[in-house]
């Protein structure tokens, strides 16, 4: 049965964006296979609806902070995939000039203030970004996405308390894929979980099926609007599943195949496609979205792979103004 009041063009855009994220990460993984990427890649394959549904509700001048698993969030915020793949491959043209790589991907020009290699560290930074917005009397919103594992780190408590005490414009999103690296997060998390903890600190908190793009989108839209209206921080707990290993190198043998198969049946892109098909979109159109995304990312992949490496001297720039290193060392 078709969904009433469906904004078909919005959903189609979301379908496209999810494919773009998936294709970007497949390109990153190909980079790993080809030993172009030597560091870690944390794919968000299967989690794309959280990125698209949440981040799609931010304005360009809103602010986003992400995690080690941040490619999808970054692309959804409007970053250029050419620059992102250059960054992942450590090349000139990368958003961070090759200095950051996957775990520190950032694009300040679209308000994406960085992935982070330290679990939970982005939570307090996000609170501070929102603090600055409040001090400057701007109507911007900060969105901070972190994993289910992060709720067991101290900065989760300190950052949420801070945001609530100061009434800051920040949306905290716990993107719960069930795992913290190889550990089932539930085995190491006491109590009622992310939203219960958030409510204990006074935040209004919601839970959502993070693989249901429509649900994520409408929930995030409401929460962002409430925050922008001056309602203070909000919390969103989105349930999803990590279809790959923790990193591109992790075979994830610690999970039964049946569990992964069941999760795969619920992955968000196919679900979105089903809704679109129900609403009348043709199989060709759906396939075209995928093909376009894959073509875009193939082109970006090839360009990034061909891009030159930064000059070694670049290693010594962007350190600091006073007491910066000199090249005498090289």
């Amino acid at each position: 049965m078709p969904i009433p009041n469906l904004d078909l063009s919005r959903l189609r855009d979301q379908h496209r964006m999810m494919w773009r994220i998936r294709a970007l990460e497949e390109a990153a993984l190909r980079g790993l296979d080809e030993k172009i990427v030597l560091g870690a890649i944390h794919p968000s394959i299967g989690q794309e609806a959280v990125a698209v549904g949440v981040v799609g509700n931010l304005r360009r001048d809103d602010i986003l902070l992400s995690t080690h698993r941040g490619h999808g969030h970054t692309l959804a915020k409007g970053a250029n995939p050419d620059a992102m793949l250059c960054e992942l491959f450590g090349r000139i043209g990368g958003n961070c000039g090759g200095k950051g790589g996957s775990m520190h991907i950032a694009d300040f020009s679209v308000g994406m203030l960085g992935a982070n290699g330290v679990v939970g560290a982005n939570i307090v930074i996000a609170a501070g970004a929102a603090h600055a917005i409040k001090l400057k009397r701007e109507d911007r919103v900060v969105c901070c996405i972190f994993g289910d594992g992060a709720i067991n780190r101290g900065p989760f408590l300190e950052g949420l308390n801070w945001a609530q005490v100061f009434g800051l414009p920040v949306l905290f999103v716990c993107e719960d894929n069930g795992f913290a690296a190889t550990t089932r997060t539930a085995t190491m998390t006491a109590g009622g979980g992310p939203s219960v903890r958030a409510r204990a600190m006074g935040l209004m908190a919601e839970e959502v099926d993070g693989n249901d793009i429509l649900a994520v989108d409408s929930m995030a839209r409401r929460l962002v609007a409430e925050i922008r209206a001056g309602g203070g921080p909000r919390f969103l707990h989105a349930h999803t599943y990590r279809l790959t290993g923790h990193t591109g190198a992790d075979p994830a043998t610690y999970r039964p195949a049946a569990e992964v198969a069941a999760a795969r049946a619920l992955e968000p892109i196919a679900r979105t496609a089903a809704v679109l098909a129900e609403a009348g979109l043709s199989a060709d159109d759906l396939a075209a979205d995928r093909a376009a995304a894959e073509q875009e990312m193939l082109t970006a992949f090839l360009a990034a792979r061909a891009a030159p490496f930064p000059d070694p001297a670049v290693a010594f720039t962007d350190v600091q103004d006073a007491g910066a290193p000199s090249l005498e060392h090289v």
Partner: protein
Amino acid sequence: MAMMTYLDAARAALAEEMRRDPTVWAVGEDLGRGGVFSQYRGLVEEFGPERISDAPISEAAILGAAVGAAMMGTRPVVEMRFSDFALCAVDELVNQAAKARYMFGGQTRVPLVVREPMGMWRSSAAQHSQSLEAWYAHIPGLVVVCPSTPADNKALLKAAIRSDDPVVYLEHKHLWPLEGEVPDGDHVLPFGQAAIVTPGSDLTIVSWSAQVHVCADAVATLARQGVKAELIDLRTLWPWDKETVLASAARTGRLLIVHEAVQAGGFGAEIAATAAEHITARIRRLGAPRAPIGYAPPLEDAVRVQAPAIVAAALGLVNGRQLG
């Protein structure tokens, strides 16, 4: 020129910078009541509780929030109360503040000042007395400031607030009541410029923070014995004024480095090593033994570097005695 305490000089610096630049704000525990040492006294009345902001006991959030707020175009001055408590926020300082500009390829700056009152202060014991300036000097991205006088505490705090780099600003708790002349007007010192406190030709003594004053006592004693020591106050540890130190030590041929921190792995080692690499001079360090700081006064005093030890070390250098 006005006589002012070290504490009031910093207070004046912060107030002047806050008047000059509306993006400057301060945050920390108890600031609304003037801060734990009264170093924020009166500021909330002038600037209001948003710009002189209280904080929960959340050091990680205080520093972490400052990183976010700095990246968003404000200039937070964060108060850590005792430098020992800054150890609750090391990820935020070292992995985040110090590296953000670099990791993100220059897309951002992190103009924050972390005030960390440091050092021994009447029976405060092991968790309230540490001097860890050497740690920060080792971390790329950080500026490290250790003012020793009221005038410097004003001019360097202003410089720190105007700096686009994250600055670890280490005031010495023992110096809060110290009075001194502070030039009127908007004096700002550049980082990396040492002060020659006393010129001399027989040996060079390098120090910083409260220990400068202990060295000054020793220098006076040495002078009475006919030994002319040149006393250099480093003022900032990163960047540090290598040129002034090396030129002086090369001239005197003798270099004594004195600090309150533990000698092993202290910043004195960096100075000594640099000197050993670049010039010909007899070199010696004086720092604390590698022991935590005790509570009872005799135990605390046992790990202090005091003037007689400085005099003895200086004489040892001048008389050419080699260490065992």
